[in-house]
């Protein structure tokens, strides 16, 4: 079965995590390159079990992982910035948010300033509103040669399917994520627009790809349609991962054509 690239990158993380559970080591020694969709789900293992982590033999790959996971490293000429960790208290979030906004660099790229700030704001707001996280990470990686940027959000909190179950919705995991993407809110009928609008704006408006995995469900969406995924017990994610793969050059759009 051929999966979209974002799904393949997630499956790669699933396999590495499974090896860690089985063997007790996270062995990335053969890794030549790592996408945010693979790195973020593995980041907790790297942070919490550093003595059990074997970095890539490839110096560029090892250096990349070390740089992005080191909050104090900075090089504005590079195509990547350190992973931004969200503070537990939203009152301290202004500086981290500015760092994430700065990932765009050229305000005409990746959907334009309004679209970029909109999706970052809404997805970070969802993390604070719903997840009860102890760790939340945002990662941006520009792939100039490939012509896109990956913007990834990860939190280790309550998953979307669990949130729906808490409120009495008996959805299967992937269907719960689908409902969330369609704008069903577990808090209020007047809410639920952030994720929905972000999805519509970026896939329909800007030709981006959108991947979300939460608990034992996942959804991939682009401007051609969507696929739902059921993750087996050992493939599930404790928390939520969202990656948006945004073309560098996008049509000029008005976000208000998509905000409902």
């Amino acid at each position, binding site marked *: 079965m051929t999966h979209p690239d974002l799904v393949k990158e997630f499956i790669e993380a699933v396999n590495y995590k499974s090896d860690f559970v089985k063997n007790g080591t996270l062995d990335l020694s053969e890794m030549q390159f790592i996408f945010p969709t693979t790195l973020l789900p593995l980041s907790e293992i790297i942070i919490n079990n550093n003595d059990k982590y074997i970095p890539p033999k490839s110096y560029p790959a090892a250096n990349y992982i070390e740089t992005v996971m080191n909050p104090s490293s900075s090089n504005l000429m590079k195509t990547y910035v350190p992973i931004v960790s969200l503070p537990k208290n939203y*009152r301290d979030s202004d500086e981290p948010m500015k760092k994430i906004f700065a990932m765009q660099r050229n305000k005409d790229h990746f959907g334009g300033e309004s679209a970029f700030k909109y999706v970052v704001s809404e997805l970070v*707001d969802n993390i604070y509103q719903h997840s009860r996280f102890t760790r939340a990470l945002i990662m941006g990686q520009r792939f100039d040669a490939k012509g896109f940027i990956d913007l990834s959000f990860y939190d280790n909190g309550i998953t979307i399917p669990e949130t729906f179950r808490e409120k009495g919705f008996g959805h299967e995991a992937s269907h719960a994520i689908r409902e969330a993407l369609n704008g069903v809110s577990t808090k209020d009928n007047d809410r639920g627009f952030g994720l929905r609008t972000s999805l519509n704006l970026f896939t329909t408006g800007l030709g981006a790809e959108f991947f979300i995995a939460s608990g034992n469900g996942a959804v991939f969406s682009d401007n051609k349609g969507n696929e739902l995924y059921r*993750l087996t017990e*050992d*493939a599930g994610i404790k928390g939520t991962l969202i990656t948006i793969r945004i073309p560098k050059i996008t049509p000029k759009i008005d976000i*208000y054509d998509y905000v409902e």
Partner: protein
Amino acid sequence: MITLILKDKVSEDLSLRNMVSNIFNSDEFKKSEDVLIDFTGIKSISRSFAHEFLIHKQKQDCKVMEINLPSDIKKMFEIVESTKIKSELVKDSVPQEIGILQ
């Protein structure tokens, strides 16, 4: 009448719902006077922030008015205030299974 400079009280980018409490729990609102909220220098606003702002504004005993609203910020408030029907964006389908070693 008291004026509250929003950019100084919150941020030039109005992102998070929780930020709204920084406004309506501030000292300016404890003085029982009408409040002008100055949006000068505001660069962006999320729909979530705008929605939360309007909810809090409605609950105030005093009069609250926005001034110097950039046109795109004003548009967000207008959208939030209008009624919505959410159509289906993500179609239902039978989920494919993902496990390890695929």
